[in-house]
Structure formats: structure tokens, C-alpha cells
């Protein structure tokens, strides 16, 4: 059994393009849920706004790439306003109900056959990512070597001996942009949550009536958090769509939202770096388990009769779910959360 391959794969993925999607989505969720206490169960729909906004603008309406980005962001803002205006004056659970329903509506609309000429229906869309990859500054045919880092006709290999990280030329560009965005939003978040504005958000999370009695317009603050978190969700959608070079409606199910929550809780909610650490660990474990099991079945470490390769996918999610349950019992604060803070009674 090839442990080296399994670890290399898992570690490659742990800082790769997909992990960045989870990290970005969870950063947005961290502002909404971690700091403000808003139960947004529709983060997948905000990602879909970004992904579909970009794809439809470029493919169906033939607009330039940057227009697509602008439209994706605008769509996320509009959606946040639409969801927020009726629900943010009400109790927290109403937002949860409305967002989970809205996310499903968005997905159903995207896969509806009626508009399949513009949205691509259940097949989704491709062919919008070329302008993005044309901007790729990494030379596609470079070949060089420096210590343990080498470039083999555009393919980056970082060889640590016991394991190695490998990224294709396109992955490199997605990761460059993705990590830049992650760092950018982490910087913004760090400034915001340590400002008086962030203090009001935390106050709202604790007790919005109290904050209201202190002269703060709670509705406006909640709306700002929902909109900004949604914008970051749309950015996650851009990276998601661009890294796969296609959009498909059925990737934006509620599962997607719950992965963002898993990532956030795993890393530690209301901590700046929580989402990034959570995303890396989540995606590392996912790949380690699935690659490990596949290798184990192939090498017949696990006998054929016990587990077939098609059963591995569901089994991995079962194991991750179990891990999540154990995490909530034994380490509810996540990787870097504050247990003392979490254990205080909240009225």
C-alpha cells in the first residue's frame, strides 16, 4: 500500500484550490455566524450567486470577465438584502429557515429546464474561465529545479522526501489568486472584528435587545454582516467555478453549506484563523480517508468482500460525521476556539 502517495495527495489538497473555496466560504460564515450569531444556512446559495453570476454573464450574455465578477458580487448583495429585509427584525431562527429555503430555490431555478438556454439547466455551464487562465503569470512550459522545489513543464513539485506536493499550472494560478483573497479577507476581518463595529456585532450575538437599548441600530449591523459575509461567499463561488472551469447546480446543495459550517466549527468559530485551519484540516482528513481507503482496497489490505471502492465515498462521510460528533462532545471550541468563552452560560 502506497502511504507516500496517500499522504502526498492529502497534503496537496490540504492547501489546494478546493480547500480555498471552503476557507473563503467559512470566512464569510464566520462573520455572520461566529461573530454576529446569524444562522445563515444558505451560504451555498451565496456561492452559487458568485459562480452563476460569473458564468452566465460570460457565457450567456457574452460580457467581459470582470463584468461577470461584478455581477456575481452584486447578485450576492441583492440576495442578502432580499433575505435580510424580511427576517433580520425577527428572531434568529427565521433567518435560518428562510436562507435554507432560498438556497434550495436558487438551486432549483438553476437546474430548471425552462431557462436551460441561459443557465445550462442541470448540465450547468463551462467556457467562462478562459479569460481567467489567460491572466496566469506562471509560465506553462517552465522547467527548473531549486533545492527540493522543481517545475516540470508548468507542473510544480515540492518534494519533501517522505511526501511531495504537486500542482498543475492551472491549480497554481487558482491558488495564487485564492490565497491572496484569503489573506486579504482575513486582514479585513481582523481589522473589523477588533474595531468598535466588530464589538457591536459580538454584542448582537450575545443579546441584541441589550445592544438596542444602548442606542445601536441592530438591524443595520446585522444587514451589514449578512451582506459582507455573502460577498465573501460569492468570492468562494468564483474560486469554486474557476478551479473546476464549470458550474453545476447540484454542487450547490445544502451539503455545501454544511461543509462550511463543519469547517468553521472544526477550526473554531469567532476566531480569525479558524476557517482557514478548519478548511485545511477538513479537506486533509477527507482526502486522507478517501485516498487511504481506496489504496487499502486496491492493495487488498481491506478484503474485496468487506468494502468496494464505490462504497468508500459514503463511508468517508460517515466517518467525518462521526468525527464531527466526537469533536462537538470533546472539543466544542474547535482547533483554536476558546473553551472558557464557550462554556459561559448564554441567556
Amino acid at each position, binding site marked *: 500500500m502506497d502511504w507516500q502517495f496517500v499522504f502526498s495527495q492529502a497534503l496537496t489538497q490540504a492547501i489546494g484550490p478546493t480547500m480555498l473555496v471552503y476557507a473563503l466560504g467559512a470566512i464569510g460564515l464566520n462573520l455572520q455566524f461566529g461573530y454576529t450569531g446569524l444562522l445563515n444556512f444558505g451560504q451555498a446559495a451565496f456561492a452559487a450567486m458568485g459562480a452563476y453570476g460569473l458564468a452566465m454573464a460570460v457565457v450567456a450574455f457574452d460580457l467581459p470577465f470582470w463584468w461577470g465578477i461584478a455581477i456575481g458580487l452584486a447578485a450576492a448583495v441583492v440576495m442578502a438584502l432580499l433575505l435580510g429585509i424580511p427576517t433580520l427584525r425577527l428572531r434568529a431562527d427565521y433567518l435560518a429557515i428562510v436562507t435554507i429555503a432560498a438556497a434550495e430555490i436558487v438551486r432549483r431555478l438553476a437546474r430548471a429546464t425552462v431557462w436551460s438556454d441561459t443557465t445550462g439547466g442541470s448540465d450547468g455551464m463551462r467556457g467562462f474561465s478562459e479569460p481567467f487562465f489567460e491572466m496566469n503569470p506562471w509560465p506553462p512550459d517552465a522547467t527548473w529545479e531549486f533545492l527540493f522545489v522543481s517545475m516540470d513543464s508548468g507542473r510544480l513539485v515540492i518534494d519533501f522526501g517522505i511526501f511531495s506536493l504537486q500542482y498543475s499550472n492551472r491549480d497554481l494560478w487558482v491558488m495564487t489568486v485564492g490565497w491572496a483573497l484569503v489573506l486579504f479577507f482575513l486582514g479585513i476581518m481582523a481589522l473589523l472584528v477588533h474595531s468598535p*463595529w466588530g464589538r457591536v456585532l459580538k454584542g448582537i450575538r450575545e443579546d441584541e435587545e441589550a445592544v438596542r*437599548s444602548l442606542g445601536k441600530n441592530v438591524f443595520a449591523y446585522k444587514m451589514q454582516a449578512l451582506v459582507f459575509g455573502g460577498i465573501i461567499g460569492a468570492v468562494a463561488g468564483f474560486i469554486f467555478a474557476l478551479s473546476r472551469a464549470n458550474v453545476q447546480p447540484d454542487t450547490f446543495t445544502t451539503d455545501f453549506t454544511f461543509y462550511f459550517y463543519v469547517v468553521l466549527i472544526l477550526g473554531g468559530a469567532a476566531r480569525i484563523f479558524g476557517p482557514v485551519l478548519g478548511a485545511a484540516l477538513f479537506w486533509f482528513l477527507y482526502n486522507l480517508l478517501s485516498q487511504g481507503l481506496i489504496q487499502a482496497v486496491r492493495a487488498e489490505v481491506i478484503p474485496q468482500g468487506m468494502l468496494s471502492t464505490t462504497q468508500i465515498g459514503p463511508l468517508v462521510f460517515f466517518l467525518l460525521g462521526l468525527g464531527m460528533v466526537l469533536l462537538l462532545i470533546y472539543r466544542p471550541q474547535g482547533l483554536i476556539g476558546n473553551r472558557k468563552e464557550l462554556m459561559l452560560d448564554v441567556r
Partner: protein
Amino acid sequence: MSDKERSDNERSDTAPTEKAPAEQAAETAPPAGGTPAGKAGITAAKAALKDVPPEPGASKPDPILTASGVRRAFGGLVAVDVDHLEVQRGTITALIGPNGAGKTTFFNLLTGFDRPSQGTWEFDGHRANRMRSYQVARAGMVRTFQLTKALTRMSVMDNMLIGAHSQIGERMWAGLFPRLWKRQEAANRERALSLLERFKLIDKRDDYAGELSGGQRKLLEMARALMLEPKMIMLDEPMAGVNPALKQSLLEHIKDLREDGMTVLFVEHDMDMVHEIADWVAVMAAGQLITEGTPDQISADQRVIDAYLGAHHDAAQH
């Protein structure tokens, strides 16, 4: 990290200078909290109310709050139906009444936490019945809650700072540029420290508010309300669930509010407390204002005894 260090430095800079006047005051002033200027507050309050007749809706020489025809019905049940009430500026006014009299509902209406079925009221010369709760607070009328609302997973200091009014850094875009609000924040921090000193919470400033005892939370809530520099402070059962030792210090704090020129309106059940600190008492029963007067007048009023004190009165004599 640097944030914390800086705030530590700040604290060590400001703490001694903050302490000095407070200690002096503690030494020279009697525990009743009456500095020479302090006596002025109560004297003025008594003088202003001297000629006011003890009847419901009596008009006051300089009312800060004037409410007319305030009515709140929940379906068929009329919870509040107050014809007229004026609260004299600079006094401590108690709002008493048996359970279910509508005191807290009336409170919620005045502070914008509930909407009236009908009625108007003016606060400090502005019509306030259309204001939302946060606008009421900004206008200078700040309330506390019957069940204390400490922001549990925030530090005591953050609880105080969030109360400060018109903060530049509370705008989202301004939050991104610390230099725009650092100076204001430092000033607010200084004010918070002196308030915490006054309310004896200074040693708790870095603890989570959730770690405070019930009584300390009451103190924190009152101190936090003062961060808004209100004109009028509304206390909803400030003594509920507070032990007798702390009760006395809370009473002194409330008296100090009057000496600082604030108007206090509070809901209370404890008649001893009402007697001790209130300049004026308004009595509600079944949603209506049944009478008003000084504490002595109220105790002697047969209507009040019937409506509210009756049961206690009988029980006490047995």
C-alpha cells in the same frame, strides 16, 4: 497581542490618576453619596415637587417626560391605559403596582421596545412615541432590564465600551481604519475605567461578564447605561434578585444618578426601597395610573392600600 499590551499600558497610565479623585471622594463624602453638590439634587427634587397635588396625571413644573393617552392592548386585554403622566426632571420617580399592573409594558412602550395601540409622549421636548428603541436611547433615555442583560461572552470592559455613544469606529468602513477612532476609543476607555471604579468593578474589567455574580451584573448594566451619558435612566426592577448588602450600594448609586443631574424612573416592588429613595411615586393597577404622590402620601392613600398594599398590610398586622 499588541492591542492588549497597549491597553495594559494605557491602564497603568490612567489608573492612578483616575483613582485619586475617586478615593478622595470616598474619604470625604459620607456613604450616602451626598457631596455638597449632591445634596442640591435631592433638595431641588423635593422643592420642585412640593406644590404638586397628589393625584393621577398631576402636572409638574419641569417635566422631562410627558405621556398622554398611552394605551396598549393585546387582543382584548388592555395591558396599559395611562391617561396622563409627567415625570419631573432631576427626580427619582418610582412606578409601583401589583403584579400584572402593566408597569413593565408601560416601560417597554416608553423606551420603544413595544409599540402602543395609541398614545403620544414627549421626551425632553421631542415627540418620542414614533421612535425605535435605539433612537430612544440615542435621544438620552436609556433603560435596563428586569432580567439583567450582560453581554456574557464579552469582557466587562467591552461591555462598557459598547455603551459609549456616537462612536466613529462603529461605522463599518471606519472600523477598517483604526487611526480614525483610536483617540475616541482611548477617551471612552478612560471614562469606562472611572465608571468601573465608581461601581467597584474595576478589578473585574478583563473578566468575561458571564463570570460576574447576579448583583455585579446589575451594577455593570447600570454603569454601561451611564456610558451613553443619558438624561434619563429607566430601571426595570433594579433590586430584583440582589442580596441585601449589595442593595444598599445600589441604592446609593441610584441616588448619585440624581445628584449627577439625571432623571430616574424605576419599577419596583420593594416598598422600603421606594420609601428610601423615591421623590415621587406613581401607582399603577390593572393598566391604569391610579394615583401619584410623595412616598408618604402614597403610603397613606387608601386606594393604594386597597390595590397594592392591602394584602401585605393585613399580613403584617397578623
